[in-house]
């Protein structure tokens, strides 16, 4: 126990030291700042994967309180309470493994939160040398605070689907915002073809993917993955029996109606069916966007790389999405499906940013055609 206490203090010290260290390393150097943003983006993506792992292993209530675990900093210190809860309900929400998964997610999130705090402070102290407004990084900090609150409510409101879905969506917004802050640190943007349909198609794709991620989050947080047990038909029909009203009642607790009765299976079928049906529309628009990107690629080769990336991600999502149904929800595949969604959102956000003129707008110093 003493060794553990010491390790805790060391970790705390490292966390406190991280801020001045980041400051000393970056010190107004725009290139290093940009690299720190990308490191944070990468870690945020990993954190989203770990969050999906936490949700899909039912570990969200592994520690039933917040911010500590039974008031302790880690599951070892709370071992007696966890063992007691495990004995009372062996298949219940609290086990030692689940408690560790939940607490690791919280530690990891604290680390990313500290990094984003550092990014905000550095954006303010280096604002003159970077030639960039510090407000996006400040908004990012506010966003991560709200995200922390939703993480807490995920626990205190006992996995209420709306809270968990918003927690997931905010994580993806955070990821995209980090990517954009990184992208606007660059001086130059690749030359752009001037065909107005391309930016519009990219914007449409981003909106549809955002909606699809919200619908998908709703499937996962309502545990509706297996409500349709076959593909492409759902329970043997193209249009199965469904109940939409209760399916999209946003304020109800997990698995129940507002009055406390159990949610009917038809509502779960509706939740599942809407996500898989909307996928066809998203897929169509993505195919169109890829085609447009490919066609303009003769003038700007980077567009072809974007087309390939998007097509690859779309295929990944279709493949993992179908696997979730026909192979009864394998954990790794479900986590990848969540990660693919986050990656798709990030790629589309960056594409939209570059098509809209990108860093040229963000930078006051760079001449308009520096990259041409």
């Amino acid at each position, binding site marked *: 126990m003493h060794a553990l206490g010491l390790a*805790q203090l060391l970790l*705390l010290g490292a966390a406190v030291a991280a801020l001045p260290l980041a400051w000393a390393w970056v010190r107004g150097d725009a290139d290093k700042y940009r690299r720190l943003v990308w490191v944070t983006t990468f870690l945020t993506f990993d954190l989203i994967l770990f969050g999906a792992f936490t949700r899909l292993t039912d570990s969200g209530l592994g520690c039933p*309180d*917040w*911010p*500590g675990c039974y*008031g*302790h*900093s880690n599951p070892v210190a709370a071992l007696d309470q966890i063992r007691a809860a495990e004995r009372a309900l062996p298949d219940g929400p609290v086990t030692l493994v689940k408690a560790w998964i939940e607490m690791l997610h919280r530690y990891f999130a604290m680390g990313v939160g500290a990094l984003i705090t550092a990014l905000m402070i550095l954006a303010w102290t280096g604002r003159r040398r970077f030639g960039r407004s510090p407000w996006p990084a400040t908004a990012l900090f506010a966003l991560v605070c709200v995200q922390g*609150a939703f993480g*807490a*409510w995920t*626990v*205190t*409101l006992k996995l209420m689907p709306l*809270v968990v879905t918003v927690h997931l969506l905010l994580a993806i917004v955070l990821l995209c915002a980090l990517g954009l802050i990184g992208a606007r640190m660059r001086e130059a943007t690749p030359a752009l073809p001037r065909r107005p349909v391309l930016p519009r198609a990219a914007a449409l794709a981003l909106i549809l993917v955002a909606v699809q991620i919200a619908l998908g989050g709703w499937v996962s947080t309502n545990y509706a993955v297996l409500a349709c047990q076959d593909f492409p038909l759902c329970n043997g029909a193209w249009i199965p029996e469904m109940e939409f009203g209760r399916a999209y009642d946003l304020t109800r607790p997990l698995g129940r109606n507002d009055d406390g009765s159990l949610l009917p299976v038809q509502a779960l079928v509706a939740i599942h069916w809407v996500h898989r049906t909307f996928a066809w529309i998203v897929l169509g628009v993505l195919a169109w966007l890829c085609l447009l990107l490919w066609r303009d690629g003769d003038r700007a080769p980077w567009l072809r790389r974007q087309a390939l990336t998007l097509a690859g991600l779309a295929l990944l999502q279709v493949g993992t999405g179908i696997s979730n149904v026909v192979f009864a929800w394998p954990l790794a595949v479900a986590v990848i499906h969540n990660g693919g969604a986050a990656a798709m959102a990030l790629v589309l956000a960056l594409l939209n940013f570059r098509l809209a003129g990108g860093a040229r707008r963000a930078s006051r110093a760079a001449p308009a055609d520096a990259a041409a």
Partner: protein
Amino acid sequence: MQASATDPAHPPAARVRQFIDLTKPRVTMLAVFCAVIGMFLATPGMVEPVVLVAGTAGIWLLAGGAFAVNCLIEQRIDARMARTRARPLARGELGSTPALAFAIALAAAGSALLYVWVNALTMWLTIATFFGYAFIYTVVLKPTTPQNIVIGGLSGAMPPALGWAAVAGEVGAEAVLLVLIIFVWTPPHFWALALYRVEDYRKSGLPMLPVTHGRRFTQLHILLYTVLLTAVSVLPFVIRMSGWLYLVTALALGAGFIGHAWRLYREYSDARARATFGYSLWYLAALFAALLVDHYLQGMLA
């Protein structure tokens, strides 16, 4: 010149902007920020979402209303000062009647939110703060005495207690300490600004300390208040509301503030006064951040 909603010189967007400016959005945000921190400090776990959203919105609306009333009362003074000359009422772009109606609407909506979704105590405290700022401070204290911002600072210091009451349903000793910290912080913060804006205040006719008692006297008072503030900021540790992390941060921040005040006392320059004012903003933000981080660390390490 007649200003109407259809006047091309006053498009609806500009109109909305004028009303928003009336609420002094930046200062309002700072007050709301302090209230939200008061909410988080009032519970070891997480604030209920309904209380957080309705409490924040209610306090925001009432604070905005109070500032609108303040703008309304001070429009003639504002017009004489370079810093505030651009405010819409001072420029005569916005009539008094719509401004008053707007302020009343904000206050009514804020009160209703607090009463229905938070609790009656929070509503009454916030309304009392509203009157303390909009009338006692603006009408009575500000034009009368150089101690105006010292006494009137109480209404500016109230937000953490409002947030605390919203969550806990009462105002505990801890909440009173938070108020005390902002209360003691206000004079050195404000006087640093008044020092380098002294000509402005002289023109406005308001009896600010550098105008009535001179620069030297104000510099001394800033220094004395920073010492007092550092002592007060240790109290959360003394009553065991906060732990070591907070104590170390508060002492370091206090030393920085005293350092700024000392340099300002030794030799006056506008740049030093500006630096002191800028530091005071960071000081408060960092002190409350330390309270919050310490609060959650205690929740985990208990």
